[in-house]
């Protein structure tokens, strides 16, 4: 009997699922070596069928998405119980990712933003409810939790595959490892390992030329009249997170002239990616007087969102104080 495979999608955009499909014919290897037990995006299996499975009967579950709702939490705990190996797959599951940025505001502010913004028509200021009476009965929605949590903040996680989404060639490589293990050709990597990524930072893979850094202005890409195709983007005044971001993507964004936004998370051994970026960027600002420093920093209108674009929910502070207070 083939070992069982599962993949689940919590608070995420779906990109991780697409990325898995992007491995092309490699997906056939998956099918050849595993029995897909549960994969809502690919096939119809009900939650209660999962609940009925024996504990640890699934060999490996790729869990993508953060924990935003009670449903996410329930499924994380359920799949943890049912799986031998639980893999936090993609940035959301590992560090909260873009949904995690909502941790900078309270639930109220999230609803205000989503349902009462200039592009919505909502004169009654309606809000989604956890339960709603309709003629046919009560409709329910899973409660939204105060903050987004990462998978490892809710359950124990065996492996981490970073990236938003993980690069397909990396997914294929992870799959190869799993298949080799199944075939008895390889040992399982040590628990807690980060799979499908490099162990330096993006600059290591970036082909751009690099020099000593003196930043006297931070710009957004559209503000630069010309972008040098050969030179480090940070040196050109673009806020590139590459120096503080784990390698593994083959410097995809900088290759095409877009600064790295940090989706592979912190480099190995780093506690807080945002702190690393803050320290690094502030260190190379070419100003000594407070006012001059501030002028450079004004080019960075959303520092928390920039430095913690992907890693906020897994950072030391995790969220805005008001949002965290609601959690208590």
């Amino acid at each position, binding site marked *: 009997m083939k070992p069982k495979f599962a993949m689940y999608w919590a608070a995420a955009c779906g990109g991780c699922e697409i990325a898995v499909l992007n491995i092309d014919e490699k997906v056939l290897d998956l099918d050849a070596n595993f029995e897909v037990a549960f994969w809502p995006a690919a096939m119809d299996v009900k939650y209660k069928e999962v609940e009925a499975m024996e504990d640890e009967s699934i060999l490996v579950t790729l869990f993508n998405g953060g924990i935003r709702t009670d449903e996410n939490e329930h499924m994380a705990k359920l799949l943890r119980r049912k799986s031998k190996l639980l893999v936090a797959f993609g940035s959301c599951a590992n560090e909260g990712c873009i949904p995690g940025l909502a941790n900078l505001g309270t639930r109220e502010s999230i609803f205000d933003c989503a349902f009462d913004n200039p592009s919505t028509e909502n004169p009654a200021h309606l809000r989604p409810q956890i339960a709603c009476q309709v003629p046919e009965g009560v409709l329910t929605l899973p409660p939204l939790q105060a903050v987004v949590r990462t998978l*490892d903040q809710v359950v124990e996680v065996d492996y981490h595959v970073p990236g938003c989404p993980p690069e397909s060639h990396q997914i294929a490589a992870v799959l190869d490892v799993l298949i080799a293990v199944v075939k008895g050709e390889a040992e399982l990597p040590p628990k807690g390992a980060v799979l499908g990524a490099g*162990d*330096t*930072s*993006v*600059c*290591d893979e970036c082909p751009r030329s*690099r*020099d*000593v*850094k*003196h930043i006297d202005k931070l710009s957004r890409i559209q503000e630069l009249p010309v972008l040098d195709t050969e030179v*480090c983007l*940070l040196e050109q005044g673009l806020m590139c997170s*590459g*120096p*503080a971001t784990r*390698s593994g993507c083959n410097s995809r964004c900088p290759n095409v002239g877009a600064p790295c936004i940090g989706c592979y998370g*912190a*480099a*190995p*051994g*780093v*506690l807080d990616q945002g702190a*690393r*970026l803050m*320290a*690094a960027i502030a*260190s*190379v600002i070419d100003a000594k007087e407070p006012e001059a420093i501030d002028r450079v920093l004004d080019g960075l209108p959303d520092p928390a969102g920039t430095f913690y674009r992907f890693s906020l929910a897994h950072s030391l502070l995790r969220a805005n104080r008001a949002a965290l207070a609601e959690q208590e």
Partner: protein
Amino acid sequence: MTDKTQQERAGEERIGVYVCHCGSNIAGVVNVEAVAKFAAEDLKDRGVVLARDYTFMCSVAGQELIEQDIHEQGLTRVVVAACSPHLHEKTFRNVCERSGINPYLSEMASIREHVAWVHTDKAAATAKAKAIVNGAVERVLKNEPLEAIRVPIDAATLVVGGGIAGLQAALEVAEAGYDVYLIEREASLGGHMAQFDKTFPTLDCAACILTPKMAAVGSHARIHLFTWSEVEKVEGFVGNYTVTVKKKPRYVDEDVCTGCGICVEKCPVMVVDENFEAGIGYRKAIYWPFAQAVPNLPVLDPDTCTYFIGGKGGCKACEIFCPTVPNSILFDQKEERVSLKVGNIILATGWDLFNARRIPQYGYGRLANVFTSLELERMCNAAGPTSGRVVLRDGQTAPKAVGIVHCVGSRDRNYNGYCSAICCMQSLKLAHLVKERTGAEVYNFYIDIRTPGKEYDEFYLRVMDEGVHFVRGKVAEVSDVPIAPSEEGGKLYVQVEDTLAGLQRRIPVDMVVLSAGLEPRHDSAEVGKTFGIACSTNGWFIEKHAKMDPIATMTEGVFVAGCAQGPKDIPASVSQGAAAAARVLSHIRQGELALEPIRASVLEEQCSGCRICNGLCPFNAISFVAERKVSEINAALCQGCGTCVAACPAGAIQGSGFSNEQVLAQIEGLLRDVAQPVTREPVTA
């Protein structure tokens, strides 16, 4: 995330915690027994196997206590909660080393300076002491065994300042057989002492005792003199400094000039000498600072020289009459820069005179016959502008009554709060000299007479016996306006409250001498910056320890001597100069020095060569290795500040001695009593 290594480490480590009473210094405020009990019981799960409190941990018996426990209890790490690590870190590291554990596996918790001495609430102080001990225990668990870094010491020494302190220091080092580069800003050695006539309390002629030393320095084969020069830049570290010296153009060829003086004689320009003659004498546009100048070379002042003022035309008398071949006058001489390699540096940059104009009520600069003490010094000097005669500003009249005002600009919260240390004795000396030369009535106006040196108070008694008057009181005003009908014009009236007699007095005199205080050099802050040392709030260079090390500074290999460190008299300056030399010689004789192994290093496998760190090091210790696309840190140049460690975006730079792990663990320990319970990882030994 669970930290297995930490758990394991706490399990296998055996930490001893020692809480010092420091007599009652700590124990009077901190409940030391409670702190020890806390460590023994609450920190048992963190690897603490024993905790003791003891009267004086730094005593021999205290040290033996630790040694004994290391041997008998098998301690692997030691925490001493006592005074500041700046005092006894070394002591306890040595204890560890003697007992066979790496000295860097010890940690001090400062509960005296940072707790007992600054807090009064005993309960709060004890709680804080516990937190600090907790922080130290967590930190020591993360300490790594380290080896001291050994650096070779270049035997050459830089002495900055050619006053009496610098001269003494230079001679001591040179006599021991090592090269000295002596840098002097002025055109001649000698400093302020060269301006004086006599020295207190012995009344030796200043020049008689100073010039032999100047000559000895000037002719010493090991001493390389750079006068009319300034230190521009200092790079490197103890044992290995590279110093850039700027040689200002003196427009005289040092190698050719014989010092015959014909150029000075022929120069037609006469200007007031504001410097050496304190504004009461004249010099030429090309001049010697003073007769016994070392080196015996004139210097040309382009700001007053006719040739330079006239846009490089005219006069040239000096050049025309110069008898040397080739001609010694070099109108085109340029600033020059010399790079020197030295192992140690002695700063003996001296002092500036307090500007008495800042106290308008004393009339200096407004009332002709108000003089500064330095002006009177020059007047008393036989080689000075009046050939030793004490006269009024008219240059003729000898005063019949002279008032000497003490503490001008010193011990005065409007100017300098400190005592300038030398003014009392200087005033007594000047009173004696005036009395001796003019027979005038001399009044000394003083706040307190401070004569703490050898034979000083005897000198005070002698001057009193000579009939000098002493009025205790701070002078309110010096005025030339008669008030009472009995007062005549043409006199100066010293208004003072005689606090011994309990009455206001107006004492008529012909001359008032302001005993101006000593101030740090106007540019001491900049000079300090050049040498990487700090100034006190008053502006004097800060010594390493006010009592135990008044010679070294916080920068290894930079020493201070003389008034640059604070006001002092000649014997003290000479002593400190010699002491600084002794410290330097000790370094030189050791051949190499053990430095704190606090250094940054790059984990090459984690470095991506982003080059964020490359521009951050002021010591140029970080370089980029293009072939391997990684940055590299030169341990010999690294000074251990840790800026690059904090800046590395990939966490690829490690800082030994102050690693992330150590600091983060210390934070956890310090906050253990307030941290939310869930963060508390139960760790069992």
